[in-house]
């Protein structure tokens, strides 16, 4: 197990380095002179020169990357061109808000998605199975922004049950919790169909295995066959997908945060792109990607814990 963890950790190093290189290159892929693009077409030459120096664009590219990497490793991601604040400060605050949203969405999507998949598989070909799978297929095709807008229209505008947008405060306050409901409902709702479909197909496969037949043959109640024998094995691919779905959650958070004016990483990134605040763009994307890599790493570890066959490979 230790060897597996050590090897998996080592394999993450080149990925993180590559990720940082790609994020670093964002600025250098800008058509033309990035400093002029940031300063705008009418900016005086000294302003452009200032930005060039500030971003280190007057240095050789390898030097620039080395400086970027070593600064990033020390938590220094530069300064925002607009607010002049440290990027790490702006990104840290937004990251915590995104984390709050993503965890809330993850928890509720698991609480809904997995039971639906289990029930659909346990009652295969029943009305519930057919209805839930058709709904899941329809749900997979709905654009997340429309789900968000409709949730806002129904629960905030028409019924007036929930606040329309923004973050009301820390999650442990009533206002904070109420403001979290709609964005989390939207973001988690998008994940439910895929989770339900996968849980169903994975459980159906487990239910067709010999050990399930044996359990049934010895007279075990169907509920126990599903819960004790099939479900544990069916959960292995589901765990992987739960990890991979964090990509969808982080991506979906960009849209959800924009709709509900939630002050997270996604909204910060989109605003920064539109205002050409490149250090913020780089900071938000780097943090999102590193978070995703870390989640994948943790998923692999969890997978190894759940499936003993992986330990020594």
């Amino acid at each position: 197990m230790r060897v597996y963890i050590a090897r998996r950790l080592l394999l993450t190093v080149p990925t993180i380095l590559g990720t940082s290189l790609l994020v670093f290159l964002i600025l250098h892929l800008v058509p033309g002179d990035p400093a002029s693009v940031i300063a705008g077409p009418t900016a005086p030459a000294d302003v452009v020169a200032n930005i060039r120096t500030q971003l280190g664009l007057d240095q050789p590219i390898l030097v620039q990357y080395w400086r970027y990497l070593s600064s990033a490793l020390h938590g220094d991601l530069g300064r925002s061109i607009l607010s002049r604040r440290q990027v790490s400060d702006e990104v840290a605050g937004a990251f915590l808000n995104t984390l709050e949203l993503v965890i809330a969405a993850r928890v509720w999507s698991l609480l809904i998605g997995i039971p639906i998949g289990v029930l659909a598989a346990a009652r295969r070909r029943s009305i519930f199975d057919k209805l839930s799978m058709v709904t899941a297929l329809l749900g997979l095709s709905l654009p997340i922004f429309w789900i968000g807008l409709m949730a806002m229209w129904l629960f905030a505008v028409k019924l007036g049950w929930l606040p329309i947008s923004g973050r009301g405060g820390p999650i442990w306050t009533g206002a904070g919790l109420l403001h979290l409901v709609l964005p989390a409902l939207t973001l988690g709702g998008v994940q439910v169909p895929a989770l339900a479909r996968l849980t169903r197909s994975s459980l159906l496969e487990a239910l067709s295995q010999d050990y399930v037949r044996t359990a049934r043959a010895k007279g075990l109640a169907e509920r126990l066959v599903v819960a004790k024998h099939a479900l544990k094995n069916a959960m292995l691919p589901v765990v992987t997908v739960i990890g991979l779905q964090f990509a969808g959650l982080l991506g979906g958070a960009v849209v959800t945060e924009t709709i509900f004016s939630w002050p997270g990483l996604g909204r910060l990134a989109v605003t920064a792109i539109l205002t050409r605040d490149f250090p913020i763009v780089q900071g938000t994307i780097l943090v999102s990607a590193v978070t995703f890599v870390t989640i994948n790493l943790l998923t692999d570890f969890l997978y190894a814990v759940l499936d003993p066959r992986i330990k020594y490979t």
Partner: protein
Amino acid sequence: MAVTAESPAARPHSDAWGRLRRDGASMAGAACLAALVLIAIFAPLVAPQDPIRVAMRERLQTPSRAHWLGTDQFGRDILSRIVYGTRVSLTVGLIAVGIGLGLGATLGLVAGFSRRLDYPIIAVMDVLLSFPQILLAIAIVAALGPGIFNAMIAVGIGAVPGFTRITRSSTLSIRERDYVEAARALGATSGRIIRRHVLPNAAAPLIVISTLSMAGAILAAAILSFLGLGARPPMAEWGAMAAEGRGLIAQYPHVATFPSLAIFVVVLAFNLLGDGLRDALDPQLED
């Protein structure tokens, strides 16, 4: 001497076509897509009005006989804009998937055939996969600048790693088969083996992934436009139209709803067809 070692995929997929035809859902998806393609081609004939004609006196009308799906804040006919938007969305999907497929399949073939280039290609793909797809697209748009053309490129590049991995794994498995060995023994070059054996056998998963990727690409491009990073006004693009309706959601929810439903229909159609193709081309995957 002609190399005639036969590979299984060289035979026509008549069984697959039969299975696909019997699948009502995927046939419905295919029919819907055929209709959408016709709408896109004949948009000027189908659309009741000019999609960018501003008529402030007719602004924000709910659905009526004159405007079946109502009008937006500039009095533009929403149905006409949706009809023209079909062109944009299908084109965006085709070009983005074309970029993903073209680059991805080429890199996958090279990685599968060249032991020297395999690791570097897969390492780069792993880095690209370390970005959630929409964030990778956002990163690329950040560099290239907002706009529908750059959004297409961004979504296409985001799709490359998936195509590369599928093609590579197919190539690795196919190149070890007996018929490839036989072809090699008969003196076939790598290029001929790729053309005659690897590509036809790798085609099935690539067709499935391409169809499903169309759904993903159209959705991703619509999301970019919704965020203001894709299509710019006054272009009739569904994601941008939904974004314009965002501020009006309290009183005029139809402005954002109809373009969103158009996205839903096209994405669902591609998903249904993709699912059907997957089951037809690889019945083992069917649960």
